[in-house]
């Protein structure tokens, strides 16, 4: 049984404790929300479905265009970044960061939180 409370706690700590991060969501690979800390304007269910759709397409590109195992999907806009990473089997982590975020640091923090979350949902 996955403990929602602790997952939520870890996500909350990640979002409030990491500079320039605006939100995060953990979703199943078929697009259902498990836990999320998102800006109020974003619908959890829709965001979850989008994250799963995007990662699945990215994985498909990795496979068909011989890019190997996909590390992350990185969407860069003029107002910020959204990053989707696989987090253990059948789970996707979405992270939203503002434009001031340092990419190297961002990826490092995401790697760290992903390892932690993957252990919890295993």
């Amino acid at each position, binding site marked *: 049984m996955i403990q929602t409370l602790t997952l939520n706690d870890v996500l909350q700590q990640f979002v409030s404790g990491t500079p320039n991060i605006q939100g995060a969501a953990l979703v*199943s*690979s*078929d*697009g*259902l929300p498990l836990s999320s800390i998102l800006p109020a304007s974003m619908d959890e*269910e*829709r965001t*979850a*479905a*989008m994250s*799963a*759709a*995007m990662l*699945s*397409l990215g994985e*498909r590109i990795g496979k*068909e265009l011989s890019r190997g195992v996909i590390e992350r999907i990185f969407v860069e806009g003029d107002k910020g970044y959204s990053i989707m990473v696989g987090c253990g089997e*059948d789970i996707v982590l979405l992270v939203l960061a503002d434009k001031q975020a340092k990419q190297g640091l961002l990826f490092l923090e995401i790697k760290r939180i992903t390892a932690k979350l993957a252990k919890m949902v295993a």
Partner: protein
Amino acid sequence: MEAFNIAITGNVGAGKTSFIKTISEIEVVSTEKKASDEVNQLKHNTTVALDFGRLTLNAEQVLYLYGTPGQNRFDFMWEIIIEKAHAYIVLIDAHRPQDFYNGRRIFNFMQSKVNLPMIIGLTHTDCEGAWEADDVALALGLKNRRRRPPIITVNASDSSSVANSLICLLEQLMMANV
């Protein structure tokens, strides 16, 4: 080469992915993931982004087939796919009347976005409890027999049946373009 984008939409488990896999001449680009909700009682995997297949009709014409996910939470994908479509098929599984309302929602969603040639494909008509086309039409809110889109039976895993439904859709498309 003239290319037509055909959208295949409809309820979860109606047979959209099968439809495309049955007729595509290329290996289908599918995005199936393990279903983690009540859908897994119906099937193991569910489409989360789209399915893509291709069917060459002749030297001048080719069909690109785009399948949508069935769940409402993916309605942003419905929008992306339908906006580029030239015609579409709504698949309804005739033996699951509890899903007709949702089928009607998908149908209404598409109609609110586009005005395109379309047909309704009834799948699973050989299953126990399958409804007749006229009854499904009523359930979908299509009361006027003369003004409703064509409703045809499709076996999504039979290539000649899938081909027939595409021919029917192409006829609609040609009529609309005359």
